[in-house]
């Protein structure tokens, strides 16, 4: 689906979301019944650098400051963080983490946050946006990844054929929507053949109050150990305190 089709499907009652400078998405959509959904995002595979983070973070903080309980939709198609000496020199890690913190604050302030991955999503830009929401959904064709297989082959010094074979048996490293769903990062995959506004409402009704991604990964068999180990550490911390 194209971005225009997605936005039209999500907001049949209307929206003013536009792709502005830096391929940033900003605007507001109308839910059935007239309530607002605040939209931010990044489009067309654009990498996210410090100049992109600032307007997005400002908008998120303004929404958090304004009060109310309008949900926030974070729409993402980005190849990853901007790779540039300038951005690194200025401390890109702080900028990306800042945007993630703003989204987490907005959620804590009463604005449920939904990530929507419809194109690419990778690495630091993924952490700063869609992975910092209460729930992440995707549309078929989305390509969430940490790194593509050819690059991974270079770094791990393993033949790409071997990685491709491995990726069929384990979701912990292979790029793609199926893997990210199995490990618990993507909670739902929406059906483009059905009305998106209805699916948005259904997702809004099921936003978890806590981070359930580790439990989801265990349930789906893609990340069997994480939830149990996190619990085990917490249990031992508690036992130590009581001893």
């Amino acid at each position, binding site marked *: 689906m194209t971005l225009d089709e997605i936005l039209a499907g999500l907001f049949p009652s209307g929206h003013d979301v536009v792709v502005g400078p830096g391929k940033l998405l900003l605007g507001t959509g109308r839910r059935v019944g007239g309530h607002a959904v605040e939209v931010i995002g990044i489009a067309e595979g654009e990498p996210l650098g410090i100049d992109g983070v600032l307007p997005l973070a400002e908008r998120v903080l303004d929404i958090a400051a304004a009060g109310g309980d309008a949900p926030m939709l974070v729409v993402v198609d980005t190849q990853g963080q901007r790779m540039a000496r300038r951005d*690194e*020199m200025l401390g890109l890690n*702080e900028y990306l983490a800042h945007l993630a913190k703003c989204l987490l604050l907005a959620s804590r302030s009463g604005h449920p946050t939904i990530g929507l991955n419809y194109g690419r999503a990778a690495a630091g830009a993924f952490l700063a946006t869609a992975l910092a929401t209460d729930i992440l959904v995707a549309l078929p064709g989305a390509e969430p*990844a940490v790194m593509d297989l050819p690059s991974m082959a270079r770094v791990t010094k393993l033949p790409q054929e071997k990685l491709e074979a491995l990726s069929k048996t384990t979701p912990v490293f292979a790029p793609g929507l199926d893997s990210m769903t199995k490990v618990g990062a993507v909670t739902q995959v929406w059906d483009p053949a059905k009305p998106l506004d209805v699916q948005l409402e259904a997702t809004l009704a099921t936003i978890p109050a806590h981070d359930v991604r580790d439990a989801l990964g265990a349930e789906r068999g893609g990340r069997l*150990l994480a939830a149990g180990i996190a619990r085990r550490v917490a249990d031992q911390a508690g036992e130590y305190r009581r001893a």
Partner: protein
Amino acid sequence: MSETGRPFAASASWFLSTARERLAKLLDAGSFTEFVPPSERVQSPHLALFDLPAAFDDGMIVGCGRLGGKSVLVAAQEGQFMGGTFAEVSGAKLLGLIRAARDDEKLPRTILLLLDSGGVRLQEANAGELAVAEVMRAIVEARAAGVAVIALVGGRAGAFGGAGLTAATCSAIVISEQGRTGVTGPEVIETNKGVEEFDSRDKALVWSVTGGRTRRLIGGADAYAEDTVASFREATLALMGKARPFDLATLRAELARLAGRVGRLGGCDSAVAMWSALGVADPRATADMDDPAFVALVADVKGAGDDAR
């Protein structure tokens, strides 16, 4: 005790120490207790697929101890095992520790993160990436519950990728000259964008872009430590109890700080140009001066002290 009368432990190099050595020497003597220790043999089940050896702690050590008599929770990454990377097991250990602090107010209200990590472990990329996202969210939740989370960066692997974002999610960051932090490592930028964009073999350039002194000068770290365990200990003690709350006011201040940095320094094409723009009288000398001289220099630089994060 060494010949100079200082305890050997205190003068040990942070950079050269292992994660376990750092913990042993940073904390009050004998106070460290490990959770899910190596004897429980909790290791990565995925590395064998890549013909790589696993470790019984997966390069992540978590537990509690005391610092200057105060109870703290601690986590330390072993940069010499798989680059200290975030993976399914290592990430879950850190996540469990932070969630414990978040949920149990009788546990110590300070967490020290001894980061030494290149980021996400590629062999477990999805699990590692997601672990970073979970850790960042847990840090925010713990901070909102009144826990101070302090990152200490000075190891061989620095704090890059997901570790760079994790550091910047903490309440405060202590860094040494050898500490490096960022998102994309210089080698990866060179591979993707060409040697003209970033020459990863030019060590002086790499250091000036990502190193601890630059980070401290532009406000990317809250405190500067010499490369000794004693200095990291002192800097950490000075930060304890001073954490800002995690709220709208703090994030508004951080946004103003980050936007102000782009305004002041966004046009600079080198670290020396940044240091000059910050008012450093002899920016070229910044790389060569000793630590006390650098600390004195930082005290005069506007903006380095405003570290809302």
